[in-house]
């Protein structure tokens, strides 16, 4: 049972506070904020107030928080509920807030606090979670969302959501999906859109000799629906999709996932034979399918790195020495596709003072971050099949041969728009013929690097 729910800004300002059971006073907010900021670094999401430390008043009080949009979403409880329930609820609350307010930030929460109170009022009563479904909630929510998006030139030139480029006609503009779902009632109405996103998160470890040591893909199909009412929608996946290790087919073109799980509203009667998901999307965002693939990538990993690290003495007498790091990075994507926002972090020896670099094109940047003992190399666009190289000279006074061991492992982050690593595709997206009104359907693919590590 949830005792209180509150939302704090990162500076500790109270944005939302609602007490459901009257078990605790409002002081618990400051107790929580003190506990969470007392130590440096991130705090685990479950915090318990020590017995006796805050007096008997707060003994046995648990705080469970998630951080989203730079805010603390906190629930306090005196009973002993499953942390999963509360964490998933708080995540859902944040997702709903995002659906209703368009985006998730301190500003949007501040501007829409009445709406969030209204949501909370219907979602939780006396500490019991009532409902989180948009279909039910929309009947009760009366407040109009205040959109906090000011007009700015920056938005127009910005690369799109997930890095997709706006110029290309096939891709939905980035801001399209980040608007409040309810605003269609107002002047903006008429935009009946459905977005179906296939999002994969890639987590890879490549060993020192280029051997793939670990590869995991966590994927999901997410629907964001702006239609006020939507009848059944059919989503067709690749017909050759096979699930589980046992079902491996003879030819190699099969798209395979280890395991998949579906939203409980998804009807699967045609899934086994035709790989068709049937779902009635409710307004807002929801995940209809989650899948994962472990230890095996159907394609080569998107990036290969060929590093060489050498020690070089500039002047042996004053012990001025430097490390030469030569990186050759190859993108193994098909030539038509591109990786965006590629950033490469290379740890450097402690005590590195300065760095000079030779990069192959002017849009790339590189900088030394002495605080993190790392150098950061950023490449905004990386076409498939290309190979880029860079030479970094890092000055390290008092270098020893063991210091070279500190260089590595290299970690990368990037986005691959219009690309799935499992090869999962959406063949078609059909709304039932009874659906009135013109609706636009968008399918977007993107792969994120969750963690991409290459050892040297």
């Amino acid at each position, binding site marked *: 049972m949830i005792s209180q729910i509150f939302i704090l800004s990162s500076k500790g300002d109270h944005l939302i506070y609602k007490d459901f059971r009257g078990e605790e006073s409002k002081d618990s907010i400051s107790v929580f904020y003190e506990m969470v900021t007392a130590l440096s670094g991130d705090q685990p999401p479950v*915090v318990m107030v020590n017995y006796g430390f805050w007096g008997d008043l707060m003994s046995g009080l*648990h705080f469970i928080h*998630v951080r989203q949009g730079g805010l603390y979403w906190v629930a306090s409880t005196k009973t002993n509920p499953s942390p999963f329930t509360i964490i998933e609820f708080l995540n859902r609350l944040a997702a709903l807030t995002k659906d209703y307010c368009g985006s998730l930030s301190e500003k949007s929460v501040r501007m829409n606090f009445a709406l969030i109170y209204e949501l909370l009022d219907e979602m939780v009563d006396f500490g019991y979670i009532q409902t989180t479904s948009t279909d039910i909630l929309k009947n009760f929510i009366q407040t109009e969302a205040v959109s906090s998006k000011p007009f700015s030139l920056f938005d127009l030139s910005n690369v799109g959501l997930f890095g997709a480029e706006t110029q290309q006609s096939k891709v939905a503009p980035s801001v399209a999906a980040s608007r409040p779902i309810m605003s269609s009632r107002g002047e903006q109405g008429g935009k009946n859109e459905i977005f179906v996103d296939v999002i994969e998160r890639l987590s890879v470890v490549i060993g020192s000799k280029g051997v793939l040591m670990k590869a995991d893909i966590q994927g999901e199909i997410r629907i964001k629906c702006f239609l006020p009412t939507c009848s059944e929608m059919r989503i067709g996946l690749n017909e050759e999709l096979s699930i589980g290790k046992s079902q491996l087919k003879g030819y190699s073109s099969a798209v395979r996932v280890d395991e998949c*799980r579906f939203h*409980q509203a998804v009807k699967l009667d045609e899934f086994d034979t035709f790989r068709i998901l049937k779902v009635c999307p409710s307004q807002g965002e929801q995940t209809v399918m989650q899948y994962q693939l472990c230890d095996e990538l159907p394609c080569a990993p998107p990036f290969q790195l060929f590093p060489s690290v050498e020690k070089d003495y500039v002047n042996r007498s004053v012990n001025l020495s430097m490390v030469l790091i030569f990186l050759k990075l190859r993108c193994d994507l098909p030539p038509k596709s591109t990786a965006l926002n590629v950033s490469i972090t290379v740890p450097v020896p402690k005590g590195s003072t300065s760095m000079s670099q030779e990069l192959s094109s002017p849009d790339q940047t590189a900088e030394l971050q002495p605080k*993190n003992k790392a150098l950061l190399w950023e490449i905004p666009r990386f076409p498939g099949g290309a190979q880029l190289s860079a030479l970094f000279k890092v000055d390290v006074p008092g270098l020893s041969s063991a210091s070279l*061991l500190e260089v590595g492992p290299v970690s990368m*982050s990037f986005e691959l728009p219009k690309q799935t690593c499992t090869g999962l595709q959406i063949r078609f997206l059909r709304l039932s013929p009874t659906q009135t009104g013109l609706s636009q359907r968008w399918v977007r693919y993107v792969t994120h690097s969750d963690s991409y590590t290459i050892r040297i």
Partner: protein
Amino acid sequence: MPYLGSEEVVKELRRALSNPNVQADRLRYKNYITKVIRYMTQGLDVSALFMDMVKASATVDIVQKKLVYLYMCTYASDKPDLALLAVNTLRKDCADPNPMVRGLALRNMCNFRMPGMTEYIEQPIVAGLRDKASYVRRVAVLGCAKMHSLQPNTEIGRDINELEWCGLLVDLCDVFISCLDSHSDGTHSLQMKDLDSWAQSEVLTFLLRYRPRSDDELFDILSLLDAFLLSSHAHVAVATLRLFLHLASAHPTVQADALLRTSAPLLATCGAASRELRFAGLCHVQQVMRSQPGLFGTHYKRFFCGYSEPSYIKFRKMEILVELVNDENVALVLEELRSYCTDVSPELAQAAIAAIGRIARTYSEKCLDILTGLLGLKQDHITSAVIQTFRDLVWFCPQSTAAVCQTVGACVDSPQDSEGKQALLWLLGEHGDQISSAPYVMEGYIDGLKTELSSAVKMELLTAAVKMFLCRPAETQDMLGRLLHYCIEEESDVCVRDRALLYYRLLQRGVEETRKVVTGPKSDPSMSVLTGRQEEPISDTDVTLSSPDDAEEEISLSLGPPLSHETFEKMWLDLETLHRQTLGFPRPRAAPDTLQAALQLVKIQTLAFTPGDTVPWKAYIYTRSTETLILAELLQGDQQAPGSDESLVVSVKQQPVNQHAIRGFVSVLKSVLQTLNVDTL
């Protein structure tokens, strides 16, 4: 926090709210109300505006109504007399033709937490229970719960018959459905599929209270719930698992099977997009591994840290990696841990080094290579952590001493922080005979004594120097003399001075006498009682699983003043048995004094036990924990006590009662006795 000039703000708002011009303009009026709520959220006390806000509740605008009600609920307990004025408006709203308004009013009226409220809300609740709109009925049922918590002995709805209740509850699809179910004739009409996931997990939690009457019924329930073990909502899957573990506590195979089947969803949450969910998943994996250590061994790659993960996840993952190491994966796990040792964050690097040290207890050779390599990096925090790891390793695993000593001897630079210095000094003192350079390293410390700040390091240095003197007198005598002189004559810290005096006088008594006192065993095998992790039976897991505690609080036992036999007997007869448990293994066959010593080691005092192989075998023990006294009886082979012919039965009495302490006590007791059993076999 009170804002500066809060009174001004309140005055300003009151003026605005009572201004007829503002009241006439609906939008402006609403804006001011929004402002009041905003201040309220920020922590400003705006309770002075209560009257104005009550007036504002009489409106057709639902949004405004909601805001005003929120205000009233917050301040009702501060202003009970004014709140009563609002009750009339609310009761009027309870009869509004719009069901949304009815529900809203009823819900908020029940939220007024003030004495004497029950008489006003009872009638609207009863009316609400019969409302034709399901929304209002739902609110009314929760209203009953709220009223119950306001005034625990009220009875609501006496005049509503059972059939109506059923309708209400099914309609409510909430917690009470299972309550009803378990009281009815056992036909489990659990329509769980139709509930949403929140209600599902609520029902599953509620079912924990239910005791099945027979095994048949138990298995009926379990097979009904089976599908939920694989629910796509992690919280439902875990709640089901918890229920399975709880219900099937007498069937370990069923429990093991349930754990096996949930391992897939648990692993999936460990890779979830939300890092909070990941953390919860990892904590649960850790719990499960206590009873099923082999379950995740093949999935070790899932617990490799991603570089962008927050540190609390990385720490958990490292702990898990240490636990699931086996012959197949040890090489890769070590390689992975090795790459964390040079992490930017010193805490993380140290934790990784300590993790390698833990693995070294089983796979010493590989780990020692890595640790020695790390010393070559010449970084203070790494060197210090490696030395500390060496110290712990030598203690737990004496066979690695030679290799460690060789490395320490070859290591040129010394740790800079006090923890690391202490560890190095301990190693030098304890194993000075095997490290050839030991006296010279120590001499460096003695020469730099004046600049040393930490008294803990000085004390360690004293002990180490005395120990070293005992094994290598010729090289050490001079520096020990200087050290003792400095510490006795010039040191300002009393503890250090006392320690030095102690050693000085001890040495005056002669070397042999000193040796007897100073050198103990190099390692203590009985420590395994404290460090070796026993395989816990699964039934213990369900107590801790799903509890949001970061980690179950460690219970600390202490001996305290001894009890006389008479006092014990009197208390034993006076107190009620609070806890009785079959431990599931026979009594340890160890010699009586071994048993007594082992129990004493974990701060449990033995009062008396029957000798040898007499049947029934009994033992009386006691211990103290935070302000409570725990008395216990161990029994085996008694005809009267069920289940005691094969295994020990423990009965616990306590004064004052503290269930948490009992749980801790029983688990400590179990691990001691189990270890003794293993040792004597």
